């Protein structure tokens, strides 16, 4: 009996910690010129990677081998090797790249170049530039429809969402939204496109087939001036039921019923909340708080902020994948 117990204990001990279900988050720190790496099991920063100047848009490649980060003031996109956690290569974007998105296969990268009014297309395998699409002034938000046929780009000064055919690379429609559109996000079923307007203080819900705004979501927080509510990042749960909208200097993330478009509650996070990303299991949503230099963790099921992790200076973008 004792021997069996001991053997079991030793077996447990040898087995070590349970198989890693940990995820890893990369956060771009716009002012610190670094990328912070967060272990989502311990909620701590495990490494800080030195990158180029003004890192903003950040995303894992589809194969998970690299993290791409747009370093705007160096006019390029850097590739961080996830094995070595060091910058391994660069991609040729236009001037001042800000946000970008890959097609589903991870072959083409579409980059919004803020200072050039263009979207640059990059072949990810050859790591070469294959073309440009002229869009409005100060392009920023990028989204791709779930069927891969439509690329969306929002231009901050033109106040439009441009619909670009991914085959012909031609703009097929322009939809006017409120002032300073920052970010675009499709529902997973492709039925709706959400575009946030930072100065307008609204989120426009667009019918992607008819190219019309069907609903404008507004926000009201008691005790806060209207101008302090500036929607930026949008994340919609994979089941399409709940949407989260980062409200910038309002220091809150709005929780929205994605079916009825009603705001259900506001979650208090750090200062100037900007972009966000779900963990791959959908349990947590991590949001970057630019001015308080930290990342808040939202429990998606409980709709509660459970933790805030200190990162580098002026965190901006975030991407999460399996470790």
């Amino acid at each position, binding site marked *: 009996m004792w021997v069996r117990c001991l053997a079991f204990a030793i077996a447990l001990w040898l087995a070590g910690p349970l198989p890693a279900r940990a995820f890893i988050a990369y956060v771009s720190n716009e002012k610190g010129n670094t990328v912070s790496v967060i272990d989502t099991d311990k909620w701590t920063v495990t490494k800080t990677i030195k990158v180029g100047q003004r890192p903003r848009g950040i995303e894992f490649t589809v194969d998970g081998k690299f993290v791409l980060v747009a370093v705007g003031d160096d006019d390029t996109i850097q590739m961080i090797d996830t094995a070595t956690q060091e910058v391994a290569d660069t991609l040729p974007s236009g001037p001042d790249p800000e946000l970008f998105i890959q097609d589903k296969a991870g072959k083409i990268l579409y980059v919004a170049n803020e200072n050039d009014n263009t979207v640059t297309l990059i072949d990810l395998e050859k790591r070469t530039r294959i073309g440009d699409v002229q869009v409005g002034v100060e392009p920023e938000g990028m989204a791709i429809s779930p069927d891969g046929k439509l690329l969306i780009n929002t231009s901050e000064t033109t106040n439009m969402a441009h619909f670009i055919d991914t085959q012909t690379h031609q703009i097929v429609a322009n939809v006017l939204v409120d002032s300073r559109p920052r970010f675009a996000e499709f529902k997973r079923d492709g039925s709706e496109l959400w575009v946030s307007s930072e100065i307008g203080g609204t989120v426009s819900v667009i019918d992607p087939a008819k190219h019309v705004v069907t609903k404008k979501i507004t926000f009201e927080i008691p005790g806060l001036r209207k101008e302090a509510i500036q929607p930026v990042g949008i994340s919609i749960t994979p089941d399409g039921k709940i949407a989260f909208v980062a409200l910038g200097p309002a*220091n809150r993330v709005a929780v929205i019923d994605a079916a009825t478009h009603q705001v259900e509650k506001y979650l208090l*996070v750090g200062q100037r909340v900007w972009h966000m990303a779900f963990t791959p299991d959908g349990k947590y949503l991590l949001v970057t708080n630019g001015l308080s230099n930290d990342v808040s963790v939202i429990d998606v099921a409980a709709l509660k902020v459970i*933790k*805030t992790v200190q990162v580098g200076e002026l965190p901006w973008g975030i991407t999460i994948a399996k470790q």
Partner: protein
Amino acid sequence: MSLNVVNAQPAGFSIAQYLTCLTGIVWREGLRFVHQRERFISALVRPLVWLFIFAAGFRQVLGISIIPPYETYILYEVYITPGLMAMIQLFNGMQSSLSMVYDREMGNMRTLLVSPFPRWYLLSCKLLAGTAVSVLQVYAFLLIAWFWEIEPPPIGYLTVLPALVLSGLMLGALGMLISSGIRQLENFAGVMNFVIFPMFFASSALYPLWRVQEGSPMLYYVCLFNPFTHAVELVRFALYGKMNWVSLAVVAGCTAVFMIGAMLAYDPSRGLSRRGPAGGET
């Protein structure tokens, strides 16, 4: 003859008899509390007014700082909840002391003090009874606060219990010590002005100490040496399943000092109550 009976030493009492005495005193305090419905309601309304009205106007006050035991940013309502829990206990402690002054004026105190049990035991029972009532009030408050989205972790409701008992004992013992010095019921207004308000406002109940320090370093030290601050912090940490050792030491130490003080003060042969005959003043 009867004096001899009173002085017949309690050494011979069994544990069951001690328990009967404890139950009697707790029961009396409980009944008194239940029968005074207004007291129960007012004990709840006071912190709820702070929570619903005062805190609503100060939602942005806390600024940006994550202080332990919190792990993320919190609203002001969440911050002041432990302070309001301790406030319930502070008022309750003082109210118990008020009832002792009343008992003494009415002569009920004699009934209690002529009991053959040792005085320290009787006073401890009285303290425990008051603490039990205050703990009930705090849980009722927490229940209502939960609907106001003040939702500490479930384990916190359990871990806060010992902290509440200890802080309740400390504040009750303080009240008892003060009541031994009050000769008439009317003097209780002075307790409000000179004890309850300064203790409550010069503490970490309403603002974190770093914020107080920004405003006035002098006030910061006053708050730091206020035992009520440590009662609040002990409750705050326990509500989130954490331990604040410094506050625990301060609260435990103060409880011991106040209790010993109260017991000495209530000893007619040595204490303060010697100054006047119980209930006899006119």
